[in-house]
């Protein structure tokens, strides 16, 4: 059955610089997880409570596709935060072979069914008559799928250089898709891909799936109007630099109520050879839209269907301006979790002038995207700091148990006064920031999310 030649992994990397067909290997497991549709517990777009009924229970058992580094399935591959509940992006260039070793760690049979790629019956990953070998992988078992990106898998003339397809489980698809066994395939036109499969003419790609997860057989408390599995602004990581060419791959899935209209504030996109800021999605839809990120700011990205907005089908994306001047201080490291008595932050004078006095602002992440200003957020030094010199600032700490709930500390200079009488003041909030994460493998963020400030206080 293995009709395709199998290359060694090293060869894939070597051959990829030229536009030769390559074989791309993926190691993906189906795993039962506890999924929280809103890890912050709040509506991050206006710092208000998530309304009932959704607030009653935000965390639910789901099943997801999870990527590993090799077929030992021991080391998870970290995927971008913004993919959320989606499985890993499976990439290919037209002409490539895609080999997915699938391990079912779930408690019932699952499989993997790709849209858009060429497969034979055994590699279809769909349970119906006549059966194929990969149509149901029992719990604890594996199957290696071989798929092929042929001409029909890639963009046609007039389409963008890369397009998106769904993959999902198809043993009991309605249940499995609702469980979260879904993910994107992105296929780039022949000759237009970088070695990793991404299109050369685009700086950044995002995938956003619009789908209502039904946890309670249609009862309102169990309907989660989610973008990539997150509601009410809890989808993290949609950052892009001003001026970047950004491609949005949009996916629709679900049931009769999954009629979605993805809408960006702040920018227009080009989609299906038209200029628009709303893209229509039906269950199973796959659309690709291109944006020039030229309007810096944090903007809403949401479904324009009213009931779906009410239900939280919204996120925020941030276009951050490039840092055009040098920063006066560097944040070297911090002792922020392990000392019950005090907090310590080590900074370095990154300028060429002696600093006479400085003030640092600190903010805390309580969840991804959930940035808050602590009650005592100022750190200051009134001692001279020579260029290149490091200095450790300290503050008294409260109980470490509570401090451990902080997943990251963001620091940025609020004011720097030099010995020569000149002064550095931030030109925008958070300029020259650095986040020190509690968990060392937390991905870096290129910009800070909006700070949580209530719109109407009492």
């Amino acid at each position, binding site marked *: 059955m293995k009709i395709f030649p199998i290359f060694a992994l090293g060869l894939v990397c070597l051959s990829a610089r030229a536009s030769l067909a390559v074989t791309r290997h993926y190691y993906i497991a189906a795993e039962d997880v506890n999924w929280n549709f809103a890890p912050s517990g709040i509506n991050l777009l206006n710092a208000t409570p998530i309304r009932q009924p959704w607030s009653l229970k935000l965390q639910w058992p789901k099943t997801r596709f999870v990527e590993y580094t090799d077929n030992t399935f021991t080391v998870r591959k970290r995927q971008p935060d913004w993919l959320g509940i989606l499985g890993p992006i499976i990439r290919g260039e037209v002409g490539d072979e895609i080999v997915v070793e699938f391990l079912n760690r779930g408690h019932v049979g699952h499989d993997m069914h790709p849209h858009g790629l060429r497969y034979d019956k055994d590699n279809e990953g769909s349970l119906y008559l006549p059966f194929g070998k990969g149509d149901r992988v029992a719990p604890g078992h594996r199957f290696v799928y071989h798929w092929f990106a042929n001409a029909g898998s890639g963009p046609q003339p007039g389409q963008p250089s890369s397009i998106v397809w769904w993959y999902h489980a198809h043993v009991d698809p309605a249940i499995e898709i609702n469980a979260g066994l879904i993910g994107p395939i992105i296929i780039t036109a022949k000759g237009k891909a970088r070695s990793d499969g991404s299109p050369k003419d685009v700086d950044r790609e995002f995938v956003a799936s619009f789908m209502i997860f039904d946890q309670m057989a249609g009862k309102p408390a169990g309907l989660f109007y989610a973008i990539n599995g997150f509601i009410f602004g809890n989808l993290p990581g949609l950052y892009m630099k001003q001026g970047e060419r950004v491609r949005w791959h949009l996916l629709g899935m679900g049931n009769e109520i999954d009629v979605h209209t993805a809408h960006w504030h702040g920018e227009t996109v080009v989609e299906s050879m038209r200029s628009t800021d709303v893209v229509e999605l039906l269950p199973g839809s796959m659309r690709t839209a291109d944006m020039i990120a030229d309007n810096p700011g944090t903007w809403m990205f949401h479904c324009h269907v009213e009931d779906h907005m009410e239900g939280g089908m919204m996120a925020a994306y941030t276009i951050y301006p490039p840092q055009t001047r040098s920063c006066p201080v560097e944040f070297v490291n911090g002792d922020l979790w392990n000392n019950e008595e005090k907090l310590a932050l080590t900074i370095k004078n990154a300028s060429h002038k002696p600093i006479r006095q400085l003030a640092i602002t600190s903010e805390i992440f309580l969840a991804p995207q959930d940035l*808050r200003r602590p009650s005592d957020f*100022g750190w200051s030094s009134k001692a001279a700091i020579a260029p290149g010199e490091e200095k450790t600032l300290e503050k008294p700490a*409260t109980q470490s148990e509570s401090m451990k*709930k902080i997943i990251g500390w963001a620091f940025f200079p*609020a*004011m720097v006064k030099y010995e020569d009488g000149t002064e550095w003041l931030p030109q925008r909030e958070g300029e020259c920031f650095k986040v020190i994460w509690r968990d060392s493998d937390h991905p870096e963020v290129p910009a800070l999310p909006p700070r949580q400030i209530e719109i109407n*206080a009492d």
Partner: protein
Amino acid sequence: MQDQHRWLSTGILLLGLFDLLGCVGMKPTTTTTGPGGDINSLNHIIILAQENRSLDHYFGYMRAYWAANGIPDQSFDGLPQFNPTSGIAPLQGPAPTNPGCDPTNPDGPDICTPNANYPVSSFHMQSVCTEELSPFWNESHEDWNADFFYPSTVSPLLNGFVKSAANDARQYTAAPVNDINGYRAMGYFQDSELNYYYHMATQFATSDRWFSPVMTRTQLNRMYLVAATSQGYAYPIGSNSADQTQLTATTIFEELQNAGITWKIYVNADNTNCATMTGDEQSACLLQGYSYLNQFSYEQTILNSAGQSPDLLQNIVPMTQFSSDVQNGTLPQVALIEPPSIEGLDEHPSDNDQYPENVQTGASYVAGLINGLMNSPSWKDSALILTYDEAGGFYDHVPPQTAVVPDQYSYPIDLQPTDQCDGANQSSGICSFGMTGFRVPMIVISPFAKKNFVSHTVYDYTAILTLIEKRFGVSALTNRDKSQADMSADFFDFTNIPWATPPSNPPAQNTSGNCSTASPVPNAVPGTGR
């Protein structure tokens, strides 16, 4: 006079009809009018808690007002500079100050660093509209002590009001706030702005030891107003992962319902999405959207009773019904008037300078309610208690008082890391629920309210619940209301009925004051050098 008389007769007739038609299955309550009555003469208790004003900020000028108008002096602990130099204590003292922000901003422009060399003195507010301040948990504790850090620095210095107001302007307000130096926290009003309230507080019964129940903001205080607890919350529901669920505490309304005592919550529907609805649909809309009872799981009980018997939604009514209930003698035994926040009549500082909120239009609205009550058949056996949910971050010179912890939640369960008191885990004292908030203004308006009376007994306003419980024979909700002194023995005189005839000519509330949030302070603030 003849007109008024006719009104009265009509009212009595309607009241009689109501008695015949309604109240089936209700516990009979005594209606005793005339001399020699007791607390059972009081058949309607009406609660109106407006928003965010401290006692000194509203009534600190009271004794100067009395002196200027030939009203006999008595003890009233307002702003010290307005006390007399001799006679009844407390006597005159210097005007209070708070350290202002160091103009060199040593900790950066986002932070007000209090510096005693730049004091901000108590001053007469130059605008009847004020910008937003913050009365939240952290800020309230910093008001109490600008250097608050538990356990090392917690003594009550009441020196952080300016700092909190300045930092609110510098850091937290969505709309720009001009007063980044926090002067507004030290501003007070006089009878020139609040002529109606000064008059009524003088005529009727008031207090100089009346505190909000908890040292944080609106939602939590309003939980205490109807349930005498916030069940461990220091933040509004849904602020973080620790405070997601509605309170399960018994509210006074549930207790009254079970005892067969009538109750209503009046909610302003004007300019809300509920305005065009009717019946249960409107009641559900008002309850869910505009009544603070939506903080309790009892909300669900009420919603689920739609179309049942009893249909509890019928107790949630639009504010327009208040005047007809007053005039028709159909007031319930206990009424709560929700603040008309959507209408901008709740006396709250402005959330946004573009839509300044005016204390005089708010006071004028309240005056209309009170005057309507006084000129109605309902007057004879009613009491309206006007107060404020919390002090709003405005300076007050009397520190919060130790109080009884309401229930098993002695310490907040939803403080965030680095919040004031986080990790303190106290069961009494400043970080616990064994402490009131700051003083707030209050007036008891009732035929039974003592004339020209000032109570000096310490209460927090869960004492209103205690009064209801005593009158209608229901039990205390928590240890907090259980521990309050008895208002009925203090503010009221049921024997002589001091105001059987209400005061004849209360002044019309001024509404012509200067509303300019851009200039809350006079050109020269004492001690600020500006």
